[in-house]
C-alpha cells in the first residue's frame, strides 16, 4: 500500500505552502497531489510555482500529480484548466469531468478525483476506456461498496490496470457551492471577499446550537466538522486499496503519516475520539465514530 498527500484544500500563504512541501520532500510519502482545487481566486501560488514544487518533489523521489479545480464555472477557469492538462509532464487528477474530456482528447492518462461521480463498475469501465489510471473513490462510499464494485466480473479481469485510492485522513470535502461561506461568515459578498480564507488555515468551525462541531467552512467548500481518520481501519484495506490519502492539515500531517505507516498491519492502533469520524468507511453516517 502506498500513501499520498492530497492537495492542500485550504488557502495558505506562499511561504507556508513552500515549507509544507519541503517537509513533504523529506518525508516518506509516496505520492503528492499539488494544486488549487477549491477556489480560483486563491493565487498565492501560480501555475509556475506549482510546477516548480512538482519538480522539486519529483527530484526528491515522489510521484507527483497536479490536481485541478472541482467546481469550474468561468471561461477563465477553463483556460487555466487547459494549462494544467497541457503541462506535458505530470499526471493530472481530474476533479471535474471537463478535465477528463480534455485529457481524453489528448490521449493522456488521468486520476479521477473523489468528486467525479463514479459509483459503479460500468462507470469505472467507461472511465478506464478514457484513460483512467487511478480511481479515488467518492468520500461517501464504504468498504462494502468498494468491495462489491471490485468483485464484479468486468472489473476483476482488468483489476491490475488501475489503482484505487481512498481519502483516509482529514476534514472531508462534502460540498461545493456558487456561494462563498467564509465570505458570508464575515458578512461579505464573494466578489468582495478580500481573500479572507487566508485568515483561516484550517477553515472556520461551524457548531450546532448545542455545541457539536458539524461542518468546517472553507470558502465555497463545506467540509466535515470531524476529522475523518481511518488509521484503525487500515488492516481492512488490504487487497482493496492501493493508495491511502492523507489530506494536509496545518499541524501534524507528517506525524499522522508516521502513525498510519506504523499501523499498516494493525499493530499500532491509535485511540481516537469525539473529534474524529470513520462512519463512511463502515457504511454508517459519515459523522459517526465507531470504536472497536
Amino acid at each position, binding site marked *: 500500500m502506498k500513501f499520498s498527500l492530497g492537495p492542500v484544500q485550504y488557502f495558505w500563504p506562499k511561504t507556508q505552502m513552500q515549507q509544507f512541501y519541503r517537509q513533504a520532500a523529506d518525508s516518506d510519502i509516496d505520492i503528492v497531489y499539488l494544486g488549487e482545487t477549491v477556489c480560483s481566486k486563491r493565487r498565492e501560488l501560480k501555475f509556475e510555482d506549482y510546477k516548480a514544487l512538482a519538480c522539486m518533489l519529483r527530484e526528491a523521489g515522489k510521484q507527483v500529480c497536479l490536481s485541478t479545480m*472541482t*467546481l*469550474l*464555472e*468561468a*471561461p477563465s*477557469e*477553463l483556460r487555466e*484548466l487547459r494549462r494544467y492538462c497541457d503541462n506535458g509532464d505530470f499526471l493530472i487528477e481530474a476533479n*471535474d*469531468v*471537463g478535465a*477528463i*474530456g*480534455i485529457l481524453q482528447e489528448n490521449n493522456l492518462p488521468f486520476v479521477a478525483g473523489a*468528486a467525479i*461521480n463514479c*459509483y459503479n463498475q*460500468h*462507470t469505472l*469501465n*467507461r472511465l478506464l476506456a478514457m484513460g483512467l489510471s487511478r480511481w479515488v473513490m*467518492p*468520500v*461517501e*462510499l464504504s468498504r462494502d461498496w468498494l468491495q*462489491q*464494485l471490485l468483485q*464484479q466480473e468486468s472489473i476483476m479481469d482488468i483489476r491490475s490496470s488501475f489503482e484505487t485510492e481512498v481519502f483516509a485522513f482529514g476534514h*472531508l470535502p*462534502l*460540498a*461545493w*457551492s*456558487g*456561494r*462563498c*461561506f467564509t465570505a*458570508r*461568515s464575515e458578512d461579505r*459578498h464573494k*466578489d468582495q471577499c478580500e481573500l479572507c480564507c487566508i485568515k483561516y488555515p484550517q477553515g*472556520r*468551525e*461551524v*457548531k*450546532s*446550537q*448545542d455545541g*457539536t462541531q*458539524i*461542518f468546517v*467552512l472553507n470558502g465555497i467548500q*463545506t467540509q*466535515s466538522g470531524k476529522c475523518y481518520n481511518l488509521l484503525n481501519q487500515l488492516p481492512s484495506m488490504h487487497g482493496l486499496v492501493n493508495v491511502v490519502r492523507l489530506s494536509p492539515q496545518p499541524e501534524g500531517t507528517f506525524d499522522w503519516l508516521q502513525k498510519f505507516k506504523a499501523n499498516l498491519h494493525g499493530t499500532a492502533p491509535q485511540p481516537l475520539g469525539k473529534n474524529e469520524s470513520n462512519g*463512511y468507511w463502515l*457504511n454508517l*453516517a*459519515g*459523522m459517526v465514530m465507531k470504536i472497536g
Partner: protein
Amino acid sequence: MELLCPAGSMPALKAAITHGADAVYIGLKDDTNARHFAGLNFDQATLHEAARYTHSAGRKLHIAINTFAHPDSFLRWQQAVDMAVSAGADVLIIADLAVLAYAAERYPHIELHLSVQASATNAAAIEFYRQFGISRVVLPRVLSMQQVRALARTSQMDLEVFAFGSLCIMAEGRCYLSSYMTGESPNTAGACSPAAFVRWQEKPDGVLESRLNDVVIDRFNPDETAGYPTLCKGRFTVGSDTYHVLEEPTSLNTLDLLPELYKEGIRSLKIEGRQRSPAYVSQITRVWRAAIDALLTAPERFTVAAEWQRVLNSLSEGSQTTLGAYHRKWK
C-alpha cells in the same frame, strides 16, 4: 421556451397539464430518482397511465432516472430505463454516465437530457457528456446569470434552468452533507435530510427544536415559523454568531429574469417540487404559464405582475424568495 413541471403523483400530473405545463417530469417508485420519498412517484401501471394522459393532451413526459447506480444492483437502473421507454417516455433525465450510455446504446431514438445531478457547470463538462448522446443539459443552481449567458452563447447544447422551487445551494450531485449526517444522500439514496431522521421537541420555554439524526438543525421561538430541517438551511454558530450559515429557508424565484433567459435562448424552465401537492403544482403552473405567455406575446412589453409574485411568495419556503446564484450578490 418550454414550461417543465414536476409531478409526484397522477393528480399532480393532471394538475400540471390542466394548468398549462408543456412537459411534466416524474420518477419511479424506488431509489433510481432523486426524490425517493414515501408515498410519492410512479409504478409500472401509473407510469403507463401518466404517459397516456400526457400524450393525449399533446404534452411531453420526462422521466428522471437520476441517482447513481449501485454496484450490486445496476440492473435496477437498466430496468428503470427499460420501463420508462416501454411506457412511452419522451425524454429520460439521467445522471450516471453508465446509465446514460446504456440508454443511448439500447434506445438510440430516445431523447436524453443530462440531469442536474451530473453537475455539468461549464462548457468542457457539457462537451464531455456530448459523447453519450445527450441533447439537453439541466444546469446546476450554482451559476450566475452572467455564467448562464456565457454558456448559452458558446455552447451548441440546449439548456434547461431551474426557474422556481426549493433551492439547492450546493452543486447538485456533489453534495454529501446529507449522507454525512444520516448515511443517505441524493446520489446514493435519492434523499436529502430524510424525514425518518427528523425529530421535533418542544422545550419548556416554548422553543421548538428540530434535529436531524440527533444534530440540532434549528431552534424556533414561539413567534417564528418552524421549517423542515433541511440541513443546509439550519441556524448554526460560527465564531460568536448564530445565523443561517449556509442559506436561509427560501425558494428560488427567477420570474424577474424571465426576459433575459428567453433572450439567451434557454430551452426550458424547470419548476422544482415533485414532492409537492397537486394544489401547489396547480398554482405554480398557472403563474408560470401566464408569465411565459405574456412574454411570448410581447417580449418587449413584458413586466412581472404583482399578483404572480404574491402567489409565488405565498408558496415559498419561509414565504421568501431569492434569485439565488443567478444574482451575483447572493454569492
